């Protein structure tokens, strides 16, 4: 895969499972009747004896995975984000997070893009939930390259991991050999006019916005938060002190996700002007993903517009 290729996270995740299967012989995969959607089907075909089809019963799936994890196996539990983070939330909380077992949660179909499935299937609040969950590591890869790298890295984390991926195609932004550091934000562009913090599939959007801003003479620092938890406080505190204004952008509600984490860190250490871009406190509806993202300002032009607004407020302050 090359920069600019459009690849869905789920395809990258499915490929990664097959690629690392021999490296981790005690890795197993659970799915709840959506293996063709989450793309665990490739692993199912390659290693049928290590694949567990649990039927449409997510609570039991999470518990069974916890049981296997008790015995030295490392299970991936794969289904749509809404079901993993909400329907099976109590099982994730008690049987996985409190027990602190190395169960890896593949939260496929994160955020808005679900193939126009609408409110019930679009997950706008899962990052807020998982970020507040003790023992949980929360990962939001930007592109296919990072999804593959994080699938492998998740296996080495001693405890539960929530890997949030998206259904739609996303342009590849990282070099093929990119290896993220868990717990550190990646600085993808430097600048001190404004800082942009992005997560997951919003990072390619932010990257395009940074180029547009540069053309207007605005030097934006882009921090990609591929790890939402543990949260890299230092990176955003430095950004606040050096840029004086921070815009956050996420494929999630503006409540409790990346924007929430940024505001918590800045309130504690370095308050500054902040604009949070994401979904307001509403459920999604069916429709074209790009159109809905644009309506909420979650596209390069929206980012540019909000950055300019933020900068005018910053000038008024100074």
């Amino acid at each position, binding site marked *: 895969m090359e920069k600019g290729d459009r690849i869905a996270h789920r395809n990258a995740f499915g490929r990664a499972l097959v690629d690392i299967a021999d490296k981790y012989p005690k890795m197993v995969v659970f799915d709840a009747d959506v293996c063709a959607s989450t793309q665990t089907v490739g692993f199912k075909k390659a290693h049928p004896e290590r694949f567990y089809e649990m039927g449409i019963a997510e609570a039991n*799936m999470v518990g069974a995975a*916890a049981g296997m994890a008790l*015995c030295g196996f490392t299970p991936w539990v794969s289904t749509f984000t809404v079901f993993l983070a909400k329907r099976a939330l*109590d099982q994730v909380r008690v049987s996985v997070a409190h027990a602190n077992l190395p169960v890896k949660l593949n939260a496929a179909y994160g955020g808005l893009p679900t193939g126009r499935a609408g409110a019930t299937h679009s997950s706008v609040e899962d990052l807020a939930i998982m970020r507040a969950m003790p023992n949980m590591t929360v990962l939001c890869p930007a592109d296919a390259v990072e999804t593959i790298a994080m699938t492998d890295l998740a296996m080495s984390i001693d405890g539960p991991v929530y890997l949030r991926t998206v259904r739609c195609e996303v342009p590849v932004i990282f070099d093929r050999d990119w290896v993220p550091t868990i717990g550190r934000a990646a600085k993808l562009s430097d600048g001190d006019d404004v800082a942009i913090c992005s997560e997951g599939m919003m990072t390619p959007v932010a990257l395009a916005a940074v180029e547009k801003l540069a053309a207007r003479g605005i030097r934006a620092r882009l921090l990609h938060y591929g790890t939402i938890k543990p949260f890299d406080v230092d990176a955003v505190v430095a950004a606040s002190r050096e840029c004086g204004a921070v815009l956050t952008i996420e494929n999630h509600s503006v409540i409790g996700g990346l924007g929430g984490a940024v505001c918590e860190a800045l309130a504690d250490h370095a308050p500054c002007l902040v604009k949070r871009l994401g979904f307001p406190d509403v459920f999604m509806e069916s429709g074209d993903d790009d159109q809905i993202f644009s309506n909420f300002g979650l596209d390069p032009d929206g980012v540019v517009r909000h950055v300019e607004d933020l900068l005018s407020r910053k000038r008024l302050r100074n």
Partner: protein
Amino acid sequence: MSLPLLGVPELEAKAKAVRRLVLETTHHARMGHTGGSLSEADILTALFFRVMQNRDLANRRVDRDRFILSKGHSTPGYYATLALRGHFPIEALQTFDSLGSILQGHPDMHKTPGVDMSSGSLGQGLSCGIGIQLAAAADPEMAGVRTFVLMGDGESQEGQVWEAALYGGARKVRGIVAIVDMNGVQLASTTAEAVSLEPIVDKWKAFGWTVIDVDGHDMGPLVEALERARTLSADGPVAVVARTVKGKGVSFMEGRHEWHGKAPNDAEFELAMKEIG
């Protein structure tokens, strides 16, 4: 080192000791789930002192039988059994529920020696037990391992129990034994008044489990039933419906939902200890 094989009279004496420790524990803590701890005492005694295999104290063997207290609130009975079995000193029971104790309100595998899996939110244990048996099927070092999951009848109102029952039966999961402590009483009322589980035997049979219906307080038949369940589970899932009495052994607690989550006061404690003998 394996346990000496205890006979029924010795097991009955152990169960009495568990009941006395339950009362001492909740009386001292001034809280705790007394009723369900007394109903499960004979089942726990039979499992931990006779039926379960390879549970060495010094060495958590990979091929040991596993136990999950899915009705996780009934810790006084569980901790009393583990203490008597030698996993930690009996004096530790005096710290139950207090800050910093190894004995939490609900079982914590990271804090309490002898606990295989944390639990507490009802309905989750059977799924975890099935997962352990999926591991046993995939790992030759776990050959012969059994997992016993103790559930409440009230707990069985949770949907996840039946997701697990469905999966266990459909896939003929081997080595899993679900034990239902059918004490007929839950927090706020009798189970019949809340949402009845009957006909419970028919339900488990319909889900594809071999069912053994037994008196959960008659030690001889109880041990026989659990040992038979252990053997039969080699071929597929087994459910043991243990007919019990909530608060068993203390007349003023028996069958009364008021004793679900309550500790005896000084006078009640004296009386209860006399009745247990």
